[in-house]
Every structure is written in C-alpha cells, then in structure tokens.
C-alpha cells in the first residue's frame, strides 16, 4: 500500500516554537507499538492515580481504554476505513480512524456521503486534561484537517461528521464552526457534529490568517 506523507508543523508548548512533523495517511506497526509502549503506560498510571485520589470517572481522560490494535485489526482489508497518524521526533503523537460510509444528517446535507471520524486520540503527553503542560499542540487539528482533506479528495466536498468527546465540544462548535446536532442518544449522549462543504472550504483555506 502506498502511503502519503504530508509535512506539517506542531507547536511545541514549552518553547513556543514550531516543530516539523509528519501527517501520514496510514497507521502502521510502529504507531501501534508506540501506542502500546508509550501511550498506554502513561494512561494506566494516570487512571490509577485519579482513582486513588477519588476523582469522579466523568473526569478521567475519556478515551483511556481504547485499543488501537483492535481498531486497526477491524479495518483490515476494508476500503471504507482509513487510518491517519501524526509523527514528531520519531514518536506517534496522534491517531485517527475514519469511515467513508458515513452519511450526513445536518439540514441540507441529509443522505450525502461524508468522512465520519470513528476515533481520534492524541498521545497522553499532548493532552490538556492530565494535569501537566502538553508537549505539542496542533496534533488533533492536523488529524481533523486530514479528515476534511480526505473528504475533498473523495468528492465528498469536505463534509465530515464526528461524535465529540465531551471535553472537545466547544472546540468543534466554536473553533471549527461545525454544526452541533446535539446529544446523540444512540451514542452514549455524545454530541454529534458535522462540517458542511462551506465550512470545510473555510477550514482548509490557504490564507495565512485564520
């Protein structure tokens, strides 16, 4: 399988400097090894600590028990699913799996194909909710941009859909200007967001100003 690599930049929080990184349209063994040996130990330790300190479960990092090996195995050989990863300093910084079978629900987009984000997760050291300063910012946004770009490439005009992890609701609504279709009772009450072609056009537009 040929893979594409896009050269991107992340913001290194400690220095405020932009660092080079790669956005790849695949998730390979090296990424799964990073997930298993670098992400998981930190997440498990953090969960144990939160549990010991009596923090309510609702406030635990919400994707801590995701099994990326299982998620990749599920999509083996299926053309409707694609994986994406962000790598910086030779370490996996974020992962995403998308489903091209998704259909729009927003007014005016009903029934039209979109790229549905099955799962999007950034490495624990890049998270804001683990009580420490994150190492890199921009990983989640890079993956989201990949989903929109893929949607454009597949003729879906940039439409994407996703169920937001609760801590990210405001980001999708206010920063990405996605349409908030409200809590989805079929999906544990997570809020469902969609990006229309027009919003996608603005999201990806090449001017320097945001």
């Amino acid at each position, binding site marked *: 399988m*040929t893979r*594409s690599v896009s050269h991107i930049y992340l913001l290194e929080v400690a220095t405020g400097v932009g660092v080079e990184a790669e956005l790849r349209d695949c998730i390979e063994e090296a990424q799964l090894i990073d997930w298993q040996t670098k992400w998981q130990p930190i997440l498990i330790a953090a969960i144990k600590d939160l549990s010991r300190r009596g923090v309510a479960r609702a406030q635990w990092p919400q994707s801590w028990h995701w099994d990326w090996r299982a998620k990749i195995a599920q999509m083996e*050989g*299926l*053309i*409707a699913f694609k994986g994406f990863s962000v790598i910086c300093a030779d370490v996996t910084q974020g992962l995403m799996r998308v489903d*091209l*079978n998704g259909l729009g629900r927003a007014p005016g987009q009903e*029934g*039209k*194909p979109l790229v549905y984000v099955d799962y999007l997760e950034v490495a624990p050291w890049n998270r804001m909710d683990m009580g420490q300063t994150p190492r890199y910012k921009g990983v989640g946004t890079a993956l989201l941009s990949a989903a929109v770009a893929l949607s454009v490439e*597949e*003729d*879906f*005009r940039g439409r994407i859909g996703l169920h937001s992890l609760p801590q990210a609701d405001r980001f999708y609504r206010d920063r990405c200007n996605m349409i908030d279709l409200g809590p989805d009772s079929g999906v544990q009450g997570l809020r469902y967001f969609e990006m229309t072609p027009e919003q996608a056009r603005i999201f990806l537009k090449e001017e320097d100003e945001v």
Partner: protein
Amino acid sequence: MPKRTMTLNLTDAEMGALERLSVRKDLTKTAVIRQALRLYQTVDSRIEKGEKLLFENDATKEKAELMLL
C-alpha cells in the same frame, strides 16, 4: 495515490440510476460507484462474520432483514 482504470458497461436503466444517485448524493458518477463498492464490501464483510443487516421502520420499530447473497 496511483489509480487503475476500468471500463464500465451499463444498461440505460443502470446509467439512469447512477445519474440520479449522483445528483442526490452530490457526487460524481465515479464517486458513486466507488462509494457503492465501499459499502458493499463493508456490509459483505460483516455478513460474513455472521451479522445481519436490518432496516428499521422508525414509526413502527419493525425490523426487516435485507437479504444479501
């Protein structure tokens, strides 16, 4: 991404269906075919695992199985 070319011969009815889908879905005809292939493969792989594809009537909650060979 390297692509391979295939010539598709369709009847008038098939081409008509393809054109109508293309309009409804806001997709090129090629994109419709590719989308159909993805959906077919996804559904087929789940049926192979023993799952069933059902339609549910939203009003009555009745479920009907889609028989796929």
